[in-house]
């Protein structure tokens, strides 16, 4: 199972008024916006410890944890590094390191 988004996540090209609808109606998805760049710490899952409770998946507010092959997988394109997953993991299976190290 993988998160799927039905909206096209291609960037929208607008060169001027002619490419725009009459009112600000969305033409694409915020998937364009890679919020991974906001992160200053990077959560890391230790799959040894992980018991697949998916609490981390459940409470990620982005959501930036996918479930791939029955495992929680952090999507670093979007993870903002809030560390909620780390805090809530019942098995302390998530740790973090500073970004840019």
């Amino acid at each position, binding site marked *: 199972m993988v998160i799927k988004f039905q*909206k096209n996540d291609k960037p929208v090209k607008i060169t001027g*008024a002619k490419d*725009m609808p*009459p*009112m*600000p*109606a969305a033409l694409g998805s915020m998937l364009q916006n890679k919020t991974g760049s906001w992160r200053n710490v990077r959560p890391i899952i230790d799959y040894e410890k992980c018991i697949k409770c998916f609490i981390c998946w459940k409470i990620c507010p982005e959501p930036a944890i996918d479930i791939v092959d029955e495992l929680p997988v952090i999507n670093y394109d979007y993870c903002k590094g809030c560390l909620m997953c780390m805090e809530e993991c019942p098995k302390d299976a998530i740790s973090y390191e500073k970004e840019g190290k």
Partner: protein
Amino acid sequence: MKKTMMGNFAASWGAQLSRVQVIAAYPITPQTLIVEKLSEIVADGELDAKFIKVESEHSAMAACIGASATGARAYTATSAQGLALMHEMLHWAGLARLPIVMTNVNRAMAPGWSIWADQNDSLSQRDTGWMQIYASSAQDILDSTIIGYKVSEQVLLPTLISFDAFFLSHTVEVVDMPDIELVDKYLPPYNPEYKLDVKDPRSFGALTAEEYYYEFRYKMQEAMDKAVDVIKEAGKEYEKLTGRAYKLVHPYRCEDADLILVTSGTIAETTNVAVDELRAEGKKVGNLRIRVIRPYPKKEILEVIKGVKKLAVIDRNISPGYSGIFSQELKSALYNEVNIPVRSYIAGLGGRDVKIQDIKDMANDALKNDSPNDLIWKGVKL
């Protein structure tokens, strides 16, 4: 079919014949009868619409916006304080480009409380992105409502139709009602390209950075420009069906006039009578009724007044600290185009009656005086 009806009922008939689908309105004198009638019609199943009995005019406009955004035809009516309370949502409807049609009964703004005729309410909405029509008879009200939807839905801008309190709202007169079949032919169902639709999910009105906002404003102005032609076209088509012509401006005996009075609303109709009397006295006076002020019919006005010697504007409104608003806008439009002297009169604020004689007085004053004047208070008691 000809019928007698009050101006207010002409508005509700206009909405009914346009097969409006969502009505959200709040009572206010002198608009109340429109709302009462529509709530009755809807309750009785004579109109297949949903009537939302909102708790304020602000909500009335918001509900119309929501309904219109789904692609439904939305209608409301209000007056004065009610219109003012909608102000933020008027901008919203405009910038969201929703073809709502609204009736406004022109009433003076409080305080002091006044329920009488005065155009300050609607004219102080002139910058909100609505098309604006000033009707001068019950017939005009009814027809303009239908034409309003026709135009609005083509250019994606809302339309405000205003007319004077009591002088029209509560006055019974003869109206020729178009058949519903004919209206159906004229006004097809509304089906916009962009709407709230779970099959085509979009957000509307999100944060719009400096990168794009400017262009949305540009597109809005483009639509206003286009509306001039669309209004003409819609008027002509309506004339074909009903024999009744509606234009942006309605000149009366202006062709050879020395002086053209520039008027609107009910004063414009009384002015026609005054013009006839003045003509009978040998004075070459015409009357130019401005029916539409947004989009502003600059070219259309220029065409009419080009050769005239003098102009006199009668305003039942004022922009405090400036002048009458029709006068202000007219003079701005004429600047760099012609240099005909304009005398501008304020009259009839707060429901003060403007009688035939008052209009003749103003005309005579303008005929006598060659100097332009921004602001003459007709009949003020000092």
